[in-house]
C-alpha cells in the first residue's frame, strides 16, 4: 500500500479529486460527464504528449500556441473552405503535420547549433509562427467545408468523438515509443545526464531534433483537431494551450528538470487539470474565484503527490 502511494502519487491525487467532486456534485460522476471530460482532455493530451519528450530531455518548448494556430490556418486554407479556392483534400493533413515537424526541427536545430536555450528559441518561434498564421490568414474567417475533417468532431461512437479515439491511439503509440524505442529510452537519459551520453558517442542531437519535431507534429495535429472542432480557421485557435499543457506535464511528474516522468504521468496530469476545471463548474464555484481555486489545487496536488519524495538532499528548482 505504501509502495502504491509512492509510485502513484499523481494518480491518487486524481482519484482524490474525482471522489471529492462526486460527493459534492451529483452530475460529476455520470457517464455523460466522463465523456465531457475525455472530450475536453483530448486536445490538451495531444499537446502534452509532444511536450513530454521535450521535457524529459530537460528542454522546453513554448511554441505550442503558435504552431497549433499556424497549423489550423494552413489546414483551413488548403482544404475545401469558404474563402480560398485551393482544395487539396485530405492531403492537407500530411502537409500540416510536416509543417509542424519542420517548425519543431528548426527550433531544435537553432537551439543546438547556435547554442541557445530552447526556452528562448521556442519563444521566438512562438512569435514567428503566430505572425505566419496572421500572414496566411485570408480576409475572412475560412469555414471548413471538408466534412471528412469536421466529422471527426461530430461523429460519435459510443458517445465519444473520433478525436478522443485518435488521442487514445496516439497515447498508446507514445507509450510504446517511450518504452520500446531507442529514442524513447534515450530521451529520459538525455534529461538525466547528457554529458555521459555524449561521451558514449550517442548522437544526442538527433534525439533532440526528433523530440522537438515530434512535438511540433503533435501541436500541428492539435491544430487540425481544433479546426475539426471549431469548424473555422482562426489565428487565435491555439491560444490557451501552452500553460495548461506544461502544467499538466508537471502535475503528473514530468518535471522541467528532465529525466523524470513520462507519457503516463503527463496524461494523468492532463486528466487532473481537466477534471478540476470540469468539477469546479459542476460544484458551481464563483467564476471570479475559479482561477484562485485552480491555483491552490495545483499546488496542493503536487505537494501531496510528491510528499513522500521529500529529501533533504534533493534539488528542487
Amino acid at each position: 500500500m505504501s509502495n502504491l502511494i509512492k509510485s502513484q502519487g499523481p494518480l491518487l491525487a486524481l482519484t482524490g479529486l474525482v471522489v471529492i467532486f462526486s460527493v459534492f456534485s451529483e452530475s460529476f460522476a455520470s457517464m455523460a460527464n466522463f465523456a465531457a471530460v475525455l472530450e475536453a482532455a483530448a486536445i490538451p493530451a495531444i499537446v502534452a504528449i509532444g511536450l513530454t519528450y521535450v521535457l524529459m530531455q530537460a528542454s522546453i518548448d513554448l511554441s505550442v500556441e503558435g504552431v497549433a494556430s499556424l497549423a489550423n490556418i494552413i489546414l483551413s486554407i488548403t482544404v475545401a473552405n469558404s474563402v480560398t479556392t485551393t482544395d487539396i483534400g485530405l492531403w492537407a493533413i500530411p502537409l500540416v503535420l510536416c509543417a509542424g515537424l519542420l517548425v519543431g526541427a528548426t527550433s531544435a536545430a537553432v537551439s543546438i547549433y547556435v547554442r541557445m536555450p530552447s526556452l528562448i528559441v521556442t519563444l521566438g518561434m512562438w512569435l514567428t509562427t503566430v505572425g505566419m498564421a496572421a500572414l496566411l490568414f485570408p480576409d475572412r474567417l475560412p469555414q471548413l467545408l471538408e466534412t471528412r475533417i469536421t466529422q471527426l468532431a461530430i461523429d460519435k461512437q459510443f458517445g465519444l468523438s473520433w478525436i478522443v479515439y485518435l488521442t487514445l491511439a496516439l497515447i498508446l503509440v507514445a507509450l510504446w515509443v517511450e518504452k520500446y524505442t531507442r529514442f524513447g529510452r534515450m530521451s529520459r537519459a538525455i534529461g538525466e545526464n547528457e554529458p555521459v551520453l555524449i561521451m558514449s558517442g550517442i548522437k544526442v542531437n538527433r534525439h533532440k531534433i526528433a523530440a522537438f519535431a515530434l512535438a511540433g507534429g503533435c501541436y500541428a495535429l492539435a491544430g487540425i483537431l481544433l479546426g475539426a472542432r471549431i469548424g473555422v480557421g482562426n489565428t487565435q485557435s491555439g491560444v490557451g494551450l501552452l500553460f495548461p499543457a506544461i502544467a499538466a506535464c508537471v502535475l503528473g511528474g514530468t518535471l522541467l528538470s528532465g529525466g523524470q516522468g513520462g507519457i503516463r504521468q503527463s496524461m494523468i496530469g492532463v486528466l487532473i487539470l481537466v477534471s478540476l476545471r470540469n468539477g469546479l463548474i459542476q460544484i458551481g464555484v464563483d467564476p471570479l474565484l475559479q482561477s484562485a481555486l485552480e491555483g491552490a489545487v495545483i499546488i496542493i496536488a503536487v505537494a501531496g503527490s510528491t510528499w513522500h519524495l521529500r529529501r533533504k538532499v534533493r534539488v528542487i528548482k
Partner: protein
Amino acid sequence: AQDDTSKKLYLGVGNTSADYWTQMIWGATQVMESVGGTVAVIGNDFDPQKSLQNIGAITAPGCEGCIFTWFPDSPAFTKTFVEKIGDAGGFITTLWNRAEEIHPWDTAPDAWIANISFDGVDAGYQNGMELCKAMNGEGAIVVLQGVLDNAPAKQRTMGLEKAIAECPGMTILDKQVGSWQQAPAQDIMRTWLTKYGDKIKGVVGQNDAMALGALAALREAGLAGKVFVTGTDGSSDVVKQIESGEILSTMSGLNEYQGAVAAALAYGVRVGDIKVADLTEAQRDFFMQQILITKANATEFLARKPDPAEYSYEAIKADIWAKSAGQIPAGVN
C-alpha cells in the same frame, strides 16, 4: 517626419483576422484613401502593454499632428494613451473602451476627439428579449461571459439582467467565463449539459465565437436548434446559422461605419474641417447604431455589400453623426 502627418492614420486594432476588425479597418481605409492618405494598421493582440509600447514607438521620434484611431484593449489604459498622444501633439479617436470616469472633454481634451462605441447594454438586452420571446417567457438559461473585466462583457451582462427584469420567467442557471473563445466555450457547454441536462432552454454567448462553441456542444448532444443560442458581433458564420435556424440571434454593429467615422473625425480635426471646441458632448462620446439579426433579416444582412462611395471622407463628413445612437450614458462602462 517630412511627409504630411495628416495623411497617415495610425489604426490600433485587436488583431487583423476577425470579421469585426477587417470591416472596421475597411471603413477607415476608405476614408483615408479618399483623401489620398494611408492607414498604418497596428495589431496589438488585445494586449494593452503592447499597445502602450506601440504608441510609445510611434510618438517617440516625434509625432506633431499625427492622427490615431485606437482600440484601447483595456479601459484602464485609455487615459494613458490619450494623454501620451496629446503630449506628442497628435489627435486620437478611441473605440469601445474608456474608463467610466474619463471623457474626451475632460481628459486631454484637445487631443482626444471622440470615443465611439456600441451599446453593449442594448446588445445584451435585445438578445435577452429575443431569447425571452423564443422561450415564451419561461425557462432557464446559461451565460458564456467574455473576459470578465472587459467593458463589453460587463455591459452585455447588465443588458441581460435588464431583460430578465422584464421577463421574470427567464432565470439564469449558471454563468462561466469562456474568454471570448470558441473551444473553451464548447467545453463549458458540454459540462453544463451533463450538469443540467434538458433544464437548459437558452444560451447567451456574449460574442459569436462563444455562441458557436455552445452550438457545437449542442450539436453533439443532438440539441442544436432545440436550445436557443444568441451571440453578438454579427459574424457571417453566425448569421448563416441564424438563417439555418440553429442560432437565434446576434447583434451586429455598423462596423465599417464605425471605422469610417473614427477616421473622418480624426482627419477632419487635424486638417481643420472640424473644430473640437464646437463639438457637443453627445458628439464626442457616442454609440454607433447596431442591428439585431434574427431569422427575419439574416439573408438580407448576408447579401449586403458596402458601397465604397458611401464611405469617402466627404460622404461621411456630410453627416458624421447620422448613424449615432446617442451619447453614452453614465454608468455603463
